[in-house]
């Protein structure tokens, strides 16, 4: 096994274990912390895929931005969470079944669709290539996303604003 393989399986196991903790943890803050670490594991996987720009963006946006926001909202809405509260609803079995079936189907599709593709074609340097694509081929979607972000920002502010008395 090469270092890359060792690292891949370690990171994969780490990420999956923490993802399980996210959905199963009793305590929501612990779940959020597990989410943060699983994002870090995913960033490591991106590095293994030579996607260093996205790895950095992953850490910056997901860990430094989104999960911090999540934690902030958790601190605002729930005090030190009580133990023994039911965290899953009654659809456990059904949704578990759905998820398992989905994973099996996807796995089958993957096995069938991408038979042991292991060679990596050469790839241009990440950051400039992405920048160029965003500014040329994908300029329109890029602008659409910026408008989406603007709309999201306005909406979030409107929703979270306190009603004027």
């Amino acid at each position, binding site marked *: 096994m090469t270092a890359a393989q060792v690292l891949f399986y370690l990171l994969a196991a780490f990420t999956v274990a923490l993802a399980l903790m*996210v959905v199963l943890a009793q305590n929501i803050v612990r779940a959020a912390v597990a989410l943060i670490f699983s994002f870090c594991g995913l960033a490591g996987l991106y590095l293994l895929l030579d996607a260093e720009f996205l790895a950095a963006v992953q850490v910056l946006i997901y860990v430094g931005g989104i999960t911090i926001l999540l934690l902030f909202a958790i601190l605002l809405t729930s005090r030190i969470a009580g133990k023994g509260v039911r965290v*899953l609803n009654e659809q456990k079995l059904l949704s578990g079944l759905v998820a398992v079936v*989905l994973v099996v189907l996807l*796995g089958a599709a993957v096995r069938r669709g991408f038979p042991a593709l292991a060679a990596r074609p050469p790839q241009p340097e990440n950051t400039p290539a992405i920048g160029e694509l965003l500014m040329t081929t994908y300029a329109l979607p890029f602008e659409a996303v910026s408008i989406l972000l603007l709309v999201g920002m306005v909406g979030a502010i409107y929703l979270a604003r306190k009603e004027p008395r």
Partner: protein
Amino acid sequence: MVPLSHYLLLGALLFGIGLFGALTRRHAISILMALELMFNAVNLSFIALSRYLPGSHMQGHVFAVFVIAVAAAEAAIGLAIVLGLYRNFKTVNVDEINLMKW
């Protein structure tokens, strides 16, 4: 070398876990977290495909960037909704919030 299918399987597994969480968790913020997990599973697949498929020209990366941007917007709005729910219902457990209008 790690074959592409392993990355895709990992993505599928994470997506399944996220789906299970989104369907079963009671806490609204937990559901958001499970959603983020699913986004990330998709991102992983995008990037893996982009890396392995010949002639992919980084499109997967660009889509991942878009997904991250959308996820950020989703998180902000979702959290604002959660705060609104909390203000109105004094709870964030979605199965207790069963009124269309208050």
